[in-house]
């Protein structure tokens, strides 16, 4: 069970008191404001309807679905290899990380194991997807708060990671590189050395972010104590990944599940923070980026040689059954529940996306906060619209 610190308890009580104050005035004429669907702060087409009392939010309700593409229905008329082209686009910044759980689920049903080299490369690309995603977050949180410069550094240094992903897979955002049984093809020559230099660039970038934002008093004033999520409440809502680790819950699927991917072969640390506020979420992600660079370096140092794909039939028919595979994606816990009836494609796929659950906490979290804090909280929970809406 997660332990609630004194700080969290005190802030939680204060939040409830704010609720109580606000509830009394709920009959008063308030102003209803639509944040979105076109708004710089909502990372896409998310609409949040808030009712304001002055500058305080009395009631908030996110309205999603502006980008709903019907993925779960679409997978029912695709073959298994075709599904990867769809699921790439769920968390479009995390690129490769979306394909992995689905392919693992299919492999689980087929009882096929990809060769070690493929698993290691998969893990490395997974972590590169994490870097591409979270480095943008580190800069973006600054922009939401008004610091214009860090986001440019983020884009500049992210380019290195995206170039690497493109060199290996052919696509920056939508690699479509994972195959049942392994990978599409092997890595290009010289890729491993390029990655090493890019990793040190990312670490320099993290130090810059620490200087520019984490060490900035204004940033701290804007984020400490704001948007406090006690661990128990967060878990009930289904918050996962860095969001829940920032509330003190020591849970990382990469470490805690026995996955065929290669995290267990690396020496790395899971970062948590006891506070559960916006600052904690930023800080945890900053440390995770640094940790991810170390994981990638270790993986590429110890990359085994061998085949890149296991022997699978030309036309893939997955035996009947159900499988659930989840991974710790950049945004949180992403999982696929694949139901197969022995055909060419899945019978039903339930795609469990992290941002859907992360956003469901907003009606509870936004009551009693000020309008600028709404923006801060949205920025710190970090969602991608494709992930919410599928």
């Amino acid at each position, binding site marked *: 069970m997660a332990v609630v610190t004194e700080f969290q308890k005190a802030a939680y009580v204060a939040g409830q008191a704010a609720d109580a104050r606000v509830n009394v005035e709920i009959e008063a004429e308030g102003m209803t404001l639509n944040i979105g669907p076109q708004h*710089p*702060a909502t990372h896409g087409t998310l609409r949040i309807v808030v009712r304001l009392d002055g500058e305080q939010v009395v009631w908030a309700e996110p309205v999603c679905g502006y980008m709903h593409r019907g993925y779960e229905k679409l997978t029912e008329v695709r073959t298994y290899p075709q599904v990867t082209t769809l699921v790439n686009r769920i968390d479009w910044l995390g690129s490769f990380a979306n394909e992995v759980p689905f392919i693992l689920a299919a492999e689980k049903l087929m009882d096929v194991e990809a060769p070690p080299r493929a698993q290691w490369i998969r893990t490395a690309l997974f972590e590169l997807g994490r870097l591409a995603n979270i480095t943008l977050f580190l800069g973006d949180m600054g922009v939401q708060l008004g610091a*214009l410069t860090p986001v*440019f550094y983020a884009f500049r240094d992210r380019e290195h990671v995206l170039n690497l992903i493109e060199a290996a897979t052919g696509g920056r955002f939508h690699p479509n590189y994972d195959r049942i049984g392994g990978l599409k093809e092997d890595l290009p020559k010289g890729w491993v050395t390029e990655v090493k230099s890019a990793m040190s660039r990312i670490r320099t970038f993290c130090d810059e972010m620490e200087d520019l*934002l984490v060490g900035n008093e204004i940033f701290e*004033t804007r984020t400490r104590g704001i948007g406090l999520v006690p661990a128990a409440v967060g878990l009930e809502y289904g918050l996962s990944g860095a969001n829940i680790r920032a509330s003190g819950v020591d849970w990382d699927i990469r470490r805690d599940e026995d996955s065929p991917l290669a995290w267990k072969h690396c020496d790395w640390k899971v970062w948590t923070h006891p506070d559960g506020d916006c600052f904690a979420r930023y800080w945890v992600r900053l440390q995770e980026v640094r940790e991810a660079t170390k994981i990638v370096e270790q993986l590429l140092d110890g990359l085994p040689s061998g085949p890149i794909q296991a022997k699978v039939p030309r036309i893939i028919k997955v035996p009947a059954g159900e499988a659930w595979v989840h991974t710790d994606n950049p945004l949180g816990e992403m999982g696929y529940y694949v139901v197969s009836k022995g055909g060419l494609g899945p019978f039903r796929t339930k795609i469990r996306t992290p941002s859907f659950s992360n956003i469901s906490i907003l009606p509870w979290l936004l009551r009693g906060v000020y309008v*600028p804090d709404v923006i801060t909280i949205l920025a710190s929970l970090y969602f991608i619209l494709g992930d919410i809406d599928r």
Partner: protein
Amino acid sequence: MTAALHLAYWQTTTIKVLVVMGVIPLGALVLAYVFLLKMMSHMQSRLGPMEAGPHGVLQLLADAGKFLQKEDVFPERADRAVFALAPVVVLMSAFLLYVVIPAGPRLTVSNLDTGVFFALAVSSLSVLGVLMAGWSSANKYSLIGALRAAGQLIAYELPLVLGVVGVVIQAGTMSLQGIVQAQAHGALLGFKTLGEPYILPQALGFVLFIVGAQAELTQTPFDMPLAETELVAGYMVEYTGFRFLFFFMAEFGTAFAFAAIGATLFLGGWYVPGVHGTAADVLGPFVLGAKIMLVSFFIFWFRFTYPRFREDQLQAVAWKYLIPLALVNILVTGLLKVVV
């Protein structure tokens, strides 16, 4: 003007008005180009505009042309008269600031004895314009922005004024020209050669002035009224075309004016040691220009680096920290003036 050329009052006034009307857009353009387009871009590891003219120098002229030829749009439920008048009010307050800024021993529109007082009083007229803009736009975002702006601008008048009071005590006069002369003839630790730029004895006052100016210009870290990622330009959001150009020019014109006042009060204005008389009249504007660029550098550097304060934190900073500091500064300056 020189003794040989004796112009009538109306002639000198006309020339002065024309000069000021030319200086404001010119100053605004220079500041916007150097700091907003180029310095900000280079700090963010990108190049900025490069196409219009060599290294993009004509970009702002192109922007001005673009704004001027746009359709004059009024929101349906906007209060037309007030909506149209608001940018003019803000621009007026920027213009009026230039009345007292000296660019040379005899180059000033009007050497008022209460120069500092006049400047600070006139700069607070912009609050009216902002409120008019926000209210008449008939837009909730504008309204929130305008109300934030009103609170902020009024709150930060005080550190601005109180920071300057120390300089006034030390110079013994409120006239800007007089303050420049006091710095020119002052002595720094006994050395008379460099004069006594007040930035050194009044360092705290300088900091307060810069912070206050930053807030008066609604620049980050005090740009809650604009808050791009929340309100998307706040009180200015419904303005397009040449009205937006007025706001833009007013903002950078005011920035230029505040930098000029800061340079005059703390860095010695047009004075450069060793240059007197007519030479100072010729060189003065350029010297003042250089000092303006230096002060603006700091103002804009802070703008691009820091995140923004939340409105209540912003007010807390002003009332709980800056004003007490300013009062302490005045106390110490007064004591030292009497004792030393």
